[in-house]
């Protein structure tokens, strides 16, 4: 069989489908009438020979071989009703793929054989060329003009920074104040008693920074904290 005479130069094949197509061609019949079973045999023999010659086969050739071996056994064994996948359908599917590849291969060859520009037919060797001289009609709208001027103005106008009067107590100030006051207290005192007098805004800021300050002091072991329940007063004292 011609299939056996195919050289084993696997570099020449573009994957298992290509090899299968070449083998199918060797059956010298219309692809619609090839014997899939014979084709499978051919392929498996080919792969087997390659294996015996210790040619390294790409994984996809082996995957195809395994699949074809499975297909072959399914085709030969008595058909199980409702077998899935249907082996006849698998064989048909393979045949359809081969037909499609063959069709495109032939189409490619016919395409390449056409009278091609620059190889068989030639355009004018020295065309004079066509030139388009563009004349711009400049467009702009009044709105764009004045809006742009406004933007330039906004962009280049001196910018004055006004810093609002912010009533805050810094963490440093709070640390200092709490450290100082806690020494003069004998018993547990609520955190609120450490805050400076002032507006409500200042007291809120002072509460936040004093809270951080007592956490830090507690970490350093300089104060003890106690809170009976969530949201209960936070009590502070110097360690005994």
């Amino acid at each position, binding site marked *: 069989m011609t299939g056996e005479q195919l050289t084993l130069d696997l570099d020449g094949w*573009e994957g298992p489908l290509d090899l299968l197509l070449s083998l199918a061609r060797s059956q010298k019949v219309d692809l619609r009438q090839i014997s899939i079973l014979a084709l499978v045999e051919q392929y498996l023999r080919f792969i087997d020979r390659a294996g015996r010659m210790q040619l390294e086969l790409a994984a996809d050739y082996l995957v195809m071989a395994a699949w074809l071996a499975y297909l072959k056994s399914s085709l030969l064994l008595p058909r199980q009703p409702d077998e899935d996948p249907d082996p006849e359908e698998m064989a048909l599917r393979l045949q*359809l793929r081969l037909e499609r590849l063959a*069709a*495109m291969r032939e*189409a490619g060859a016919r395409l390449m054989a056409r*009278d*091609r520009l620059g190889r068989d037919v030639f355009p004018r060797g020295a*065309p004079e060329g066509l030139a388009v001289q563009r004349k711009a009609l400049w467009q702009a709208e009044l709105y764009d003009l004045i809006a742009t001027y406004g933007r330039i103005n906004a962009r280049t106008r001196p910018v004055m920074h006004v810093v609002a009067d912010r009533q805050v107590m810094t963490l440093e100030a709070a640390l200092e104040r709490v450290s100082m006051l806690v020494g003069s207290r004998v018993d547990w005192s609520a955190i609120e008693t450490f805050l400076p007098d002032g507006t409500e805004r200042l007291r809120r800021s002072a509460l936040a920074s004093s809270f951080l300050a007592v956490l830090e002091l507690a970490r350093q072991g300089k104060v003890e904290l106690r809170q009976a329940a969530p949201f209960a007063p936070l009590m502070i004292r110097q360690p005994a």
Partner: protein
Amino acid sequence: MSALDPTVRAVEAVLFASPEPLSIDSIRAHVGVEKGGSDIRTALETLEATYSGRGIALVQRGDRWHFQTAPDLAHLLRRDREEARRLSRAGIETLAIIAYHEPVSRAEIEAIRGVAISKGTLDVLMEAGWVRPAGRREVPGRPLIYATTPAFLQHFGLTSRRDLPGIEDLRAAGLLDPVDLALERLEDEAEASSGAREEQGDSD
């Protein structure tokens, strides 16, 4: 040649001077409307007929027209024997698949060829100016799809994709349909014919 129709002369001159194929619109942009002249399309038809059988031919490629030498004179003109860069087999098949199936995704090309296409293959086709990305397929993953270009038609001497060799036969034979679709159709046909047989059987 008798043709002294001013539009015919003008179209002839513009097409000769152009380094690339021209659409009717761009021809008109140069030629303008000559008084007493025929319209551009008529002029093109006149020229096509005038040059028929000569050493030069007027041809339509896609929606563009250009002059080129007659194909049967290739032997006089082929400048150097070796073809400028031969396309690999993978390149030729990929180009054929794109041309006959366009627009087509990379996965679809690979399904037909049965192998992955190397990155270089599509690059070569795009670099040659024959293939271009043509948007994305609106399916999961939104893959890029590819199609041929006007330069493809020009290079291969095709008036349109309908001129692709054998495309009508391939379509009629279902060979441009995906395997799944072809399989469905075969099953439908098988069912229809077995159905027909059954009916015959019933009527006996």
